[in-house]
């Protein structure tokens, strides 16, 4: 394959993978929803879960996006410094979003700020959003994809607390937000919390937390303990599927943290809705790939 052909091939794979994630939820989200449905007793909540499963079935069968809000595409790259297409990667991903918008189809959601014009193809200044991490010496490339819905992006929030407010202040910050806006964001929610130095780092980490598989816990024992506490607390608040009440209100809570200035306590919170359309695909240098979020995904040229 020539370089041009390889660029085209990676673009096509990514376009088809992004489209696939709009139609099929990742395996961990499906099994979590099944678990929540099985332990639910409230008849109204149960009928909402049944509707979700019927929708997932029909979306797969008809190849249509499971939610009409196919979101704003957010990408997180973990690219090996020796990956052959590293220089072209951003352009590849932009083109992939345009192709996925036409082929899937995805709803055109992206509006240029100040111009207030919908670009029609889900790209624009800084869209899709792309964050980078370079992995020295590696020749492969991992890409996390996320279709961020409007409804679940809306309650996102970040602030810098006084250190004196302590971890209890962090808990209040997160729970206040959920109590105020959680019912509207299509629960059961995936709650991502970032604790770091300032608003930017805390907010970034809170989104990164949403890329973690459901059921995973922070390697830091205290953070893991706090994840469990928050999960129990939010479930006890009784928001339930679609905010209509029920046993479970969350798919999970994950916390990512970083060291901070002694005088600050930055906290960010991001939310994923029950249609948590996250994907992870890892390429080798020859563009063969694996995807643990969507093992059913195959690419035929």
């Amino acid at each position, binding site marked *: 394959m020539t370089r041009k052909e390889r660029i085209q091939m990676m673009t096509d794979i990514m376009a088809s993978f992004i489209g696939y994630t709009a139609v099929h939820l990742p395996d961990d989200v499906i099994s979590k929803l099944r678990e929540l449905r099985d332990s639910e007793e409230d008849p109204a909540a149960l009928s909402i879960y049944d509707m979700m499963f019927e929708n997932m079935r029909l979306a797969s069968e008809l190849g249509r996006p499971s939610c009409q809000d196919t979101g704003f595409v957010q990408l997180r790259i973990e690219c090996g410094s020796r990956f052959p297409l590293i220089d072209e990667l951003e352009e590849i991903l932009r083109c992939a979003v345009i192709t996925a918008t036409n082929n899937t189809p995805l709803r055109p959601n992206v509006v240029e700020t100040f111009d207030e014009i919908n670009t029609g193809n889900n790209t624009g200044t800084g869209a899709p959003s792309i964050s980078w991490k370079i992995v020295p010496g590696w020749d492969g490339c991992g890409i996390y994809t996320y279709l961020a819905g409007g409804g679940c992006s809306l309650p996102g929030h970040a602030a810098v607390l006084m250190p004196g407010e302590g971890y209890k202040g962090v808990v209040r910050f997160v729970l206040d937000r959920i109590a105020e806006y959680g019912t509207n964001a*299509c629960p059961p929610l995936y709650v991502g919390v970032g604790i770091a130095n300032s608003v930017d780092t805390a907010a970034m980490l809170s989104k990164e937390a949403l890329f973690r598989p459901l059921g995973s816990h922070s390697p830091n024992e205290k953070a893991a303990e706090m994840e469990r506490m928050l999960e129990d607390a939010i479930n006890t608040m009784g928001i339930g599927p679609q905010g209509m009440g029920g046993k479970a209100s969350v798919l999970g809570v994950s916390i990512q943290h970083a060291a901070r200035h002694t005088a600050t306590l930055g906290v960010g919170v991001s939310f994923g809705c*029950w249609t948590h359309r996250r994907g992870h695909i890892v390429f080798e240098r020859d563009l063969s790939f694996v995807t643990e979020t969507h093992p059913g995904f195959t690419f035929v040229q």
Partner: protein
Amino acid sequence: MTETINGKTILSTPFTEEDILALRAGDVIYINGDIVTGRDDVHIRVIAENMDLPAVINDKALMHAGPIVKCSEESGFEVIAIGPTTSMRMEKFEYDFIKKTGVRFIIGKGGMGERTAEACREFGAVHCVLPAGNAVVTALCAEEITGVEWLDLGMAEALWNIRVKGLGPLIVTIDSGGRNLFAERKKEIARRKEEQIEEIGKKLESIL
């Protein structure tokens, strides 16, 4: 017209005043007939910019929604995916919107606030929630797109006229008496939240 078929309550357009006034918060219903989509930009045009809505909707349903619509030469417009969007974004305009357009039946997701509940009480309207994120199930309730206005706002913001069959389950969250289910639930959620913060606060002291 309201009828009960196989235990399901079904309302059909044109809705009458009696149809709407009979609904109570918590009722679960389905609808047949004409709905019109309208969300942020439609509300901004009609209220903030004082334009006239290019549709008569007093006996139809307004749905806070932006669908994915496919347009082909053979089959014209086709709804691929549709579902409700966050109604609270329209709270700022909804009282005046109900007053100006006479709409009595609003479909969305999540709750709405005091002003909308006030309009429901004053003008005899209801707000219902349709479980969101179920865009394919809901799209299959759409029989036909009968028209579109304000397409210049983009696919998501345009005013789509759609004929639906069996759209639901719709859970009445604000009734024409002004009872607001979400407002009640939110109070309870806030109460439990305070308890939880205290409880976690104590537990955290012991591990940190």
